[in-house]
């Protein structure tokens, strides 16, 4: 019996496997390679039964087309979601934060002009100024979650450090950042993905304040960039529907960049994130970022 020379096969780059310690599955997905190769003329002539393979080939082609369509839709979904979030964050910044900032400046100016003898007015104006400062900080937090423009303004490391400094200043959380390698020349998509992973993981910590210690390691090698983040003694809200959605979207972002993603709690109160993004060769086409 002759063998059919069908070269279409299940994609070898799909890998899903269990990690140690009972953690959630780590996933990686290499860039799709050519799924089918063309049989040589000799092979075609040798195997007359190949005609029987036509239905299977057609099925494989259809599967391939469907997968490509799913990938295109995923790209579109991410792109539109990013555009919408970017638009909202810009609107909030340009209107709400700017207005609150101007109001606080006016309030401080009034406070400065108050005579020292009018202690009651000074006390009230100070209170209003403090409330405005809190509102501005809160609005900035929301804006940063919608679209982390800080990555563009400060670079990846600056943005992460700024975020961690805020946590330290607001909640007294002990923070240990450790960065090695040049992170400034990363593609924007990679930098955004890494920052968002930090951001989303921190959000899993209830009020971001319950972590006793945050340890962050960022390493760049010839192969790619690895991010490790550990939140010690943390009360997570990982099982909330919103968190599960964020988790799924982050996983997809990483997989689209052919990376590896692992988010797990160790059962002892610590939350661990491990993310690896291979760096693309120069000139490689990356998934589109929001314009």
């Amino acid at each position, binding site marked *: 019996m002759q063998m059919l020379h069908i070269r279409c096969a299940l994609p070898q780059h799909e890998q899903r496997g269990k990690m140690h310690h009972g953690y959630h599955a780590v996933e990686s997905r290499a860039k799709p390679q050519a799924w089918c190769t063309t049989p040589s003329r000799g092979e075609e002539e040798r195997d007359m039964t190949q005609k029987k393979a036509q239905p299977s080939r057609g099925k494989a082609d259809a599967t391939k087309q469907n997968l490509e369509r799913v990938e295109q839709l995923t790209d579109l979904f991410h792109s539109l979601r990013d555009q919408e979030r970017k638009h909202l964050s810009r609107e909030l910044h340009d209107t709400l*934060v700017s207005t609150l900032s*101007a109001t606080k*400046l006016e309030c401080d100016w009034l406070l400065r002009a108050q005579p020292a003898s009018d202690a009651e007015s000074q006390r009230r104006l100070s209170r209003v100024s403090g409330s405005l400062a809190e509102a501005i900080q809160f609005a900035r937090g929301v804006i940063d979650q919608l679209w982390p423009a800080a990555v563009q303004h400060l670079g990846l490391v600056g943005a992460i450090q700024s975020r961690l400094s805020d946590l330290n200043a607001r909640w007294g959380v002990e923070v240990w950042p450790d960065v090695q390698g040049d992170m400034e020349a990363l593609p924007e998509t990679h930098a955004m993905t890494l920052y968002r992973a930090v951001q989303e993981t921190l959000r899993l910590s209830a009020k971001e304040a319950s972590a006793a210690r945050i340890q962050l390691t960022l390493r760049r090698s010839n192969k790619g960039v690895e991010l490790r983040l550990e939140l010690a003694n943390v009360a997570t809200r990982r099982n909330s529907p919103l968190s599960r959605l964020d988790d799924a979207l982050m996983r997809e972002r990483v997989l689209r960049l052919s990376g590896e993603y692992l988010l797990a709690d160790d059962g002892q109160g610590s939350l661990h994130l491990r993310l690896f993004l291979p760096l693309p060769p120069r000139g490689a086409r990356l998934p589109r970022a929001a314009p």
Partner: protein
Amino acid sequence: MQATVNAPARSRRVMVVDDHVASGDLLLEILSMEGYAVRVARRGRDAVATAREFKPQIALLDVGLPDMDGFALARLLKADPDPELQQIRLVALSGYAQSADTKSSKEEGFDHYLVKPVDVEQLLSLLESLS
């Protein structure tokens, strides 16, 4: 669009570049009352034209302008052929406390950084030190 108030008590000229009308106008009012000659520009390209005509010694630049970022504007001002403008002292107004520490910010030619919302006392103290 520009706004201007001239106060002759001090000879220092300050240009404020902020696209948020209330913020720009308030800074104009505060600095004018402190005796500075002040002009406000809302956009980056207006700021360049204002600077060439007004020749400020100090410029307060909002980093997030609609038509160009404050870093690009800083580069333009520092690279202007007018030698007076090349001496301009640039103060960045940024929402990010970390900006002052970033290497790129220093390289863009900013001399000082103030975190928004601007603290009035801090601003006046800084301008006094530059005067």
